[in-house]
């Protein structure tokens, strides 16, 4: 597990941004679909141990940005540096292997599988026994399965979802599905956790629960988190730094207070006549 660095306690720098080792660096990334520009020349970084929010109006390119980070889209220009390694093109499974996990805007659970199996699915990369051990399901394969089951049960305890362990996820209410999805991402023990609107469609109570889980993940496991969220109250409360996108461009970057007072950001959210 990574050593936890709390950026809130780091020394202020001349540019006003807290210090910490850079975990992920997005460098001048541009992404187009045919003639449509989804992302234009965006650069920002995510530091180890922080909670980094990505905000912006609908269609600002937030989800596309996450898709670029975990290799689902390949940007036409620019590159991503993760843990000191620069890459232009990466397959999603390679991104997962390098320590990036995520959740999705519309819950993307494996509907035909139980909660337990879904979270076990998150352990895919931690399991290595080959085909022939799997065939006999005894000895090393069984031991590996049980060792990973133990890890998964820890996550189930952490997220307080013991009672739905064996329920097919398709039958769960939305809020719980979101929680299982978080569990599945956590099971991979990622260095960087990407959360795409973890609180969309939740009521106040569920949002509070989810915020608590996110903060706990960050402080207990020391996991670096990047999240997209529309609820400004939540964003301002839990994130260390915020990057603001609009029409595929970056229009703000800094602490919640800085972003809140930026004229450009206010214009983007409230609308302004040009």
């Amino acid at each position, binding site marked *: 597990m990574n050593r936890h660095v709390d950026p809130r306690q780091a020394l202020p720098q001349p540019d006003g941004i807290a210090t910490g080792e850079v975990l992920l660096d997005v460098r001048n990334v541009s992404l187009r679909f045919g003639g449509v520009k989804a992302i234009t020349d965006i650069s920002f970084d995510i530091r180890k141990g922080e909670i980094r929010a990505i905000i912006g109006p609908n269609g600002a390119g937030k989800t596309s940005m996450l898709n670029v980070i975990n290799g689902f889209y390949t940007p036409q220009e620019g590159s991503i540096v993760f843990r000191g390694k620069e890459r232009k093109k990466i397959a*999603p499974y390679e991104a997962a292997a390098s320590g990036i*996990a995520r959740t*999705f805007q519309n819950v993307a659970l*494996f509907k*035909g*599988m139980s909660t337990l199996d879904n979270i076990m*699915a998150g352990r895919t990369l931690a399991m290595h026994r080959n*085909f022939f051990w799997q065939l006999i399901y005894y000895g090393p*394969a069984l031991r590996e399965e049980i060792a990973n089951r133990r890890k998964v049960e820890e996550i189930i305890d952490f997220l307080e979802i013991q009672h739905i362990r064996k329920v097919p996820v398709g039958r769960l209410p939305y809020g719980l599905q979101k929680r299982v999805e978080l569990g599945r991402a956590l099971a991979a023990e990622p260095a960087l956790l990407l959360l795409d609107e973890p609180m969309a469609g939740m009521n106040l109570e569920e949002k509070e629960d989810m915020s608590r889980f996110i903060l706990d993940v960050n402080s207990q496991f020391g996991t670096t988190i990047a999240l997209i969220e529309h609820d400004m109250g939540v964003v301002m409360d839990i994130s260390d730094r915020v990057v603001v996108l609009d029409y595929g461009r970056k229009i703000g970057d800094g602490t919640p207070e800085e972003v809140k007072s930026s004229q450009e950001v206010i214009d983007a959210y409230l609308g302004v006549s040009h």
Partner: protein
Amino acid sequence: MFYREAGQFKTSYEADQQVFPILQDRIGVAIILGVAIFIVPFVANDFFLSAIAIPFLILALATIGLNVLTGYAGQLSLGTGGFMGVGAYACYKLTTLFPDVSIVVHILLSGFAAAAVGMVFGLPSLRIKGLYLAVTTLAAQFFLEWCFIRIPWLYNYNASGAIEVPGRQILGTMVTGASAGSVPRYFTVLAIVILLTVLVKNLLRGRIGRQWMMIRDMDIAAELMGVRPLYAKLSAFAVSSYLCGVAGAMFVFFYLGAAEPSAFSITLSFQILFMAILGGLGSLVGCFFGAAFIWALPIILRAGPPMIGIPIAAETAFHITSMIIGALIVTFLILEPHGLARLWQIGKEKLRVWPFPYA
């Protein structure tokens, strides 16, 4: 009342992860196996073993093969018949090339030929999905059928173009060919089917089976969890085709005795697909239900009405079977898309809480 799991506590993950965690299930399976091994072969007549029990077991294995691919890995295949044919022809060639090696070894090896062919035709699944893939497997079906007709080497340049099963022994007993009795054939088939079913179950409950289901349920999320689509899909194609190949080899060697290329036509592919749908996609026990149902229905229709005094032409019975099966497929898809296996599960759940309606 008797089907209760109350009081059966699990104290280790190992105990919780066994195939039949409930005691009554274990007893039930033991009884079924006992009947299949110790009672059926000694009580049933030759017709029942040869025309019902043996093809039922073989087709159930083929259905498991298709279910691995379609039910678990979510890749629709219409080429099952072709893959079964590959197994049958491979086994035939193996018996001619190595006449001294045991037939069981040949049967189990011939599945690998089918697996190799299956993987080749599975390659497009990396780029194309869903309905488009159905066309790919149709290509496999028609291409393979063509090969069985046009490559004389496959049937040893026979004038008839068909493959004739040679007589082979296991432990001094004839198990294939014209002089083989139905009991030794039954035992050989039963042993192979049980062995492969257990192995497949192991795969399905471990990492590999989970990867297949991840690809089936949400392929993009699976990839972002670290599943490599190439390995996951091709392994599903390989395992599926292996099982179909073994089933195809057994179909010819232990049931048909001789086969022409038309034995592995698209009709067989559909028959297996129907078994999988009716039994329940994504269920192993369903494969046995589905195979039993679809295999037995025409036999019952042909034999049933004359018994109660209604004469029925063989052809009419055949047409009615086709209609009933077609209608049943649609009905099941509407009422219970998870097939007979799901009905079985619901029955068990009801039994658990009986005589109360809810737990």
